[in-house]
């Protein structure tokens, strides 16, 4: 039970951490000042949620570890985030496409987590849900603006959605920890809103003049710790300070 709960919290937290790190890469490099600030604001919200999850996970684990140990000192295979969040910032279409595909899931997930029997997870959801709905509004607006914009922006948005689509199905994969936590009434049964997810995403894509991909092939692995080639680079950036100056603090 304890191990399953720990693994469960970690897998949710890692999604937010890695996505926050990807958004953080854009700090000072956003296409405009407003989008730059928006990206880092979203990143900050996600890091805040991550900290709450890791603090809780460390407590559950009971080995005296801190949130920093969990964020910075694990090996690649020990991170359980989905592949979607580690995909690179190739261009702004990818950044907003990745964000939107995750935000829709994230909001549905948090809405369910409000009912978790675990008080801490329910409290994190209650706090985070307001932030996540704001993120979705922003990313959804941009998918629409780019998709329904110029010929060039539409092409780029379509390209991003086509490439990122293969990572969406993994969002709904259930690991052993997921299943154990669903039985306990702690975890979220993502299969409950899979259909809603694809309906909502498809609706916005259609409104944005984006063709909804029909491919049935999906890539998965992150939730089991088998990551894409990008993960090592993300971690070397993320973990640099802690590896170079062990035990450093802010």
């Amino acid at each position: 039970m304890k191990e399953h709960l720990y693994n469960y919290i970690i897998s949710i937290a890692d999604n937010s951490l890695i996505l926050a790190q990807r958004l953080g890469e854009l700090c000072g490099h956003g296409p405009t000042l407003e989008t730059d600030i928006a990206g880092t604001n979203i990143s900050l919200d996600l890091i805040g949620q991550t900290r709450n999850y890791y603090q809780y996970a460390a407590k559950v684990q009971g080995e005296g570890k801190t949130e920093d140990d969990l964020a910075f000192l694990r090996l690649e295979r020990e991170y359980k985030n989905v592949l979607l969040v580690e995909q690179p910032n190739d261009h702004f279409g990818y950044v907003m496409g990745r964000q939107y595909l995750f935000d829709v899931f994230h909001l549905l997930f948090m809405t369910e987590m409000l009912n978790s029997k675990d008080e801490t997870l329910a409290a994190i959801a209650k706090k985070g849900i307001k932030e996540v709905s704001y993120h979705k509004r922003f990313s959804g607006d941009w998918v629409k603006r780019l998709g329904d914009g110029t010929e060039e922006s539409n092409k780029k948005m379509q390209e991003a959605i086509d490439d990122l689509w293969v990572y969406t199905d993994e969002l709904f994969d259930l690991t052993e920890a997921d299943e154990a936590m669903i039985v306990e009434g702690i975890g979220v049964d993502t299969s409950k809103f899979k259909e809603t997810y694809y309906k909502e995403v498809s609706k916005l894509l259609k409104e944005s003049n984006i063709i909804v991909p029909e491919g049935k092939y999906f890539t998965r692995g992150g939730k089991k710790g088998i990551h894409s080639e990008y993960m090592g680079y993300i971690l070397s950036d993320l973990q640099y300070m802690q590896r170079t100056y062990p035990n450093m603090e802010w």
Partner: protein
Amino acid sequence: MIITQPANIEPHLIPILEKVSDPEIPVLTVLDLGVIREAIEEGTVVKVKLTPTYSGCPAMDVIGDDLKKAFEPLGKTVEVELVLSPAWSTDWISEAGLQKMEAYGIARPLSETADKEVLLGNAKKVICPQCKSTNTHLVSQFGSTACKALFKCDDCLEPFDYFKCLK
């Protein structure tokens, strides 16, 4: 009307807590902001329950340190506990706090419905803290801190921050 969630703060600690301000909006004390949910003195230890405005608000760590510093000269140590539930709401900012905020140049949060309208760019309701005009428009949904959005006044042409409604 502002409905304030009662916080359990021992009255004799208030003068000291009033000296601790929000590092991002220095005119507001932590009491104005409503982030202190409990402050109880037990011997030489002051136990404080702090709630974040936003999950990632970096001001929380600084506020925790500032609380420790404020009680240090009195020979008291502070134990800060971060509480997430119930989640902080802009309703918890005191009326005095809202007035200080406006004088500082940040527009106060509107009601939940009006907030949605202005952040979607559908209505002109945010009052410019400089010239009091409502002829203002949204520049960016995200502002200089997690709790604010960026607006511009179309009359006096000054850009300003709007404190987003959070409920």
